[in-house]
């Protein structure tokens, strides 16, 4: 991942600041940077969202396609994740440089989102054992300025909120052949329930304390971080430690508590914002990528 070189003196400065709950950019330890969200930015997808968090920018598109359900869960649809690390984000991603990170990210996202507690996978089923909706979630990293997980998770939640799946119904003829029929009204579509979709909160252990939404400099001072996915009720659905260092049980406990708190607080304004945007309908002024 994109890294910055931080000198010893800078490190001390950052560490001391965090110890006093005052970070380099003036935030407290549990504060996020400025976040911007816009949905429905790519017309070719069924749902899309663009999120900028500080200078981190990600674009998420959701494409719904008809596929075959997995044999183990015939009555459920599923999600697929792909993370594309654009070389626009950082020169390190050039060539195949971003591949490793992309795989790591998409595996984590799969763990976090593809389960029936996060999304009602049953609603994606069209015909048990034969047809279901597969949601291809494509994540494009446009710019990296730390805290990718959180930005991506918010973007995914927003994109899923925005997703409109065309309504289909199965008609069968007497020979037993089943035919998928499409409604000819483009407004006749199914929306997903995103209430339980979690957001990821990454907590970075810096010194003896931990911070959320670490910048690249803060990240450089940290030895290990914990990613926690939290639902709107504060339930933790997934937890994972990343980074080379070790965390002692006590600080893990502290960090989960903080994560819960921060995560819970993140959901409410996010949903409010999305609903507000949705209610504007066609009157909304699109910002897009130039705004």
């Amino acid at each position, binding site marked *: 991942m994109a890294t910055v070189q931080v000198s010893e003196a800078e490190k001390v400065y950052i560490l001391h600041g965090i110890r006093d709950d005052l970070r380099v950019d003036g935030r407290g330890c549990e504060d996020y940077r400025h976040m911007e969200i816009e949905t429905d930015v790519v017309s070719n997808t069924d749902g899309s969202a663009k999120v900028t968090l500080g200078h981190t920018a990600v674009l998420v598109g959701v494409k719904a396609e008809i596929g075959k359900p997995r044999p183990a869960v015939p009555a459920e649809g599923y999600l697929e994740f792909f993370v594309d690390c654009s070389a626009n984000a950082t020169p390190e991603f050039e060539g195949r440089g971003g591949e490793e990170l992309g795989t790591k990210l998409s595996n984590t996202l799969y763990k976090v989102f593809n389960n029936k507690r996060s999304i009602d996978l049953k609603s994606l089923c069209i015909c048990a054992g034969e047809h279901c909706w597969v949601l291809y979630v494509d994540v494009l990293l446009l710019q990296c300025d730390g805290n990718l997980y959180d930005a991506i998770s918010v973007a995914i939640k927003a994109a899923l909120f925005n997703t409109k799946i*065309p309504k289909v119904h199965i008609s069968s003829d007497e020979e037993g052949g089943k035919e998928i029929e499409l409604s000819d*009204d483009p407004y006749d579509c199914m929306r997903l329930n995103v209430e339980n979709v979690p957001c990821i909160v990454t907590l970075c252990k810096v010194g003896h304390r931990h911070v959320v939404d670490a910048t690249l400099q803060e990240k450089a001072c940290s030895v290990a971080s914990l990613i926690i996915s939290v639902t709107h009720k504060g339930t933790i659905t997934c937890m994972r430690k990343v980074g080379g260092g070790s965390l002692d049980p006590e600080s893990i406990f502290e960090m989960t508590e903080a994560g819960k708190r921060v995560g819970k607080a993140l959901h409410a304004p996010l949903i409010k914002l999305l609903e507000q945007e949705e209610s504007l309908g066609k009157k909304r002024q699109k910002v897009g990528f130039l705004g």
Partner: protein
Amino acid sequence: MLKSKTFVKKTRSGGVMKVVREHYLRDDIWCGSEVCTECKQESTVLQKDACMESSLCSYPHYLVPDTNVVLHQIDILEDPVICNVIILQTVLQEVRHRSAPVYKRLKDVIHEKEKRFYTFTNEHHRDTFIEREPGESANDRNDRAIRVAVKWYSQHLKTFESDTDGLKVVLLTNDQGNKQKAQDNGLLVYKCEEYVKSLIANPELVDRLALSSDDKNEITSSKVLFPEHLPLSRIQTGIKSGSFLQGTFRASRDNYLEATVFVQGEGEDSTEVCVLIQGLQNLNRAVHQDVVAVQLLPRSEWVAPSSVVLQDEGTAKDDEDAEEEEGKLRTAAAEAARKPTGKVVGIIKRNWRPFCGMLNVSQIKESTRHLFTPAERRIPRIRIETRQASTLSGQRIMVAIDGWNTNFLGGAGEKDTEEEVLLLEHDVPHQAFSQAVLSFLPKMPWAITPEDMMKREDLRPLTVCSVDPPGCTDIDDALHCRELENGNLEVGVHIADVSHFIRPGNALDKEAANRGTTVYLCGKRIDMVPELLSSNLCSLRSNVDRLAFSCIWEINHKAEILKTRFTKSVINSKASLTYAEAQMRIDDTNKNDDITKSLRGLNKLAKILKRQRIEKGALTLSSLEVRFHMDSETHDPIDLQTKELMETNSMVEEFMLLANISVAQKIYDEFPECALLRKHPAPPPSNYDILIKAAKSKEVEVHTDSAKALADSLDAAKVDGFPYFNTLLRILATRCMMQAVYFCSGMDSDFHHYGLASPIYTHFTSPIRRYADIIVHRLLAVAIGADTTYPDLMDKHKQSALCNNLNYRHKMSQYAQRASVAFHTQLFFKSRGILNEEGFVLFVRKNAIIVLIPKFGLEGTVFFDSKDKVSPNIVFEEEGPTLSVEQHKFHIFDKVKVTISLDDSNIQHQKIRMALIEPVIPGVSVPAPDTERPAKKQKLDR
């Protein structure tokens, strides 16, 4: 301004795809009206004083039809009266989507300048584009788009009201909801019917109105209800799973309640299966030539084709009657004679074309619904709505089933009309050649250029002459024969080099390929190529230089071919003779000029060739051909005679056969994959049943194992005191034969020509009147290096498709020819009144006998059961076959005496009526010829 249009669609693999299209809105789309000063248009389509005399709209106005009006009432829009119409892009797109033929017609109308149809691209106009709203169906959205555009127009034009007297825009729609909404929006809107009825100056337009849906319901509530046709998707799955069969529907000529469907077998087993369909319910509204899906009935319900002749009697018949007739069909048939029987479950492709026919005026005076009876017997009657019944009755009219065309053709029974009808009915392209076709003709005056001479052999010094029927102007063959120094004979067949003038792929070539053949009617010829070629440049007339394709043999006196060569040449015919003239020269021993000597040599060789051919097993069949003597002024037939055959006929024929066979061999050797050949398949043995049975009744045995055996037994068949027997037998044998067909050598393995007993055959000798010969000329020219090839010539699939068309045209031209003869026979009998003639029984049917009158070459049916008389006691025996009427038993070949008269009680199907005089059967035969005409009697009885 950019908008995007989003829609979802299903992909072929069953997935769902979201499609997003960019859609640009513009502000430079002009309204197309003459009055507009705001739009910066260069030329305007819509006139300032758009006047259609309507009692509803007394002011100048433009019409805006909605999609359904265009789809259903295109006949109205095509009328020259209707002009100044705005066709919205929304409408155009929807029409294109829903019906390609209507779209094509609409496009044609738009392109016509005088019609002043303007296409307004409202979907791209900034002010008239609308987006679909949630909950709105696509149709509602389009209706709204139309209303918005109309609104825009009326406001746009209002701006210039000062200098016009209130130009308005009128929306035409048949949709009640749409009309209501438009009225609420303050638009001028009328139903199409209302508007058309208000056109005071043109009341005839009303008849062109198609029925609106509520009218249709009334009609379907009549008594015979047909089973619903299945939707196409179910038919397709049915055909895939094998539960339905797909085939072409062919109605029976003799029986309107019976039809067969020819189903092409699958894979290697490519034999055709016939499925019999019987009864109105099972026929299920299929019309002759439709492609239909049929379902086979269980074996227990299979029936045999009835040999009853049933004619739909034209008059409005009650359904009970039809049921009764259906009952008649279901006679117990022998198990063996039963055929696969099925019912029509759906129609895959309608093959409707305009039909000619007549109106049966309804008995109720005020009624506007009448029945239309098509001239073609295989087409069912069609219900028509018109207010012009009184003017239309007795006229030949044209009716299109899908539209509402009623065109006059002229009075029935008039000669020109009848000829037109039979050409139309047999799908013979007979329009004048188009300008595009004529543009490919050589420029006159035409002369042979030195370059042509360079490439061709100069055969002008040879004594070439042509022998043809009298009055022939399209002479495509000429002959010569001379003695060589080595004692052998050189014989040349020179064929008009039509392929020199008709180059592949141009409009002239395409037209000729489509026409396929020249059609000869009595006293009329429908040319395949324009007259300049057929009667002048290609015609090998005497004493002019003509281009030819020559086939030259060196033949010894035993008529063995020693050498064959083909060459493009220039000839100069020394004489154009008729068969009779040629015959006279040969017979006249005083004449000893070059031409006569040449003819004698040819005649001698021809006799040997013919003998050889017959020894090989070629058949000499017989069919009576009738020739009319025409009145030179009225072109009415004044006398008729059967065609006489002379030695010279057979002389020319013999050399033509020889040339065809030589050429066939040459092109097949050169192009085994794509030679165009002609074959005549051997008939299946069962075809001969009737012939064997008939011969047996006169104790004559006919062997049908091979062509040779058949030819021999026909030659041997003689009955004492019955000289005509042999001819009759040959006529019957002809009926047993298969059709000879063109085919592409790469697509078939059986080349044999049964009738000529030749292993290979083609048509080379009449390129002026047959397109197949042109192709053969091209192939031969390539083979001898005289011309270049082109891709289509070497494509066996293209060739095969061409063959199909040629076979079809050929068959149709024969039918048309026959129909023309039949019509002229009728005309002849019309002027003659009632005649008594001797005839022979040719076929015996269940309720009738078919009688041949040799004097006129005329065939007619004598019915024994008629509607208004008590049926005599009739017993039909399949073995034999014989028909016993009261005490008398009819056999095939029985001599009978009949009266012949013209039955014009049904003017549509005027027919020759025959009634029996001898043998006398009480209650059946008619006593004397000069009594009142039976036709009239029938009329009184009704």
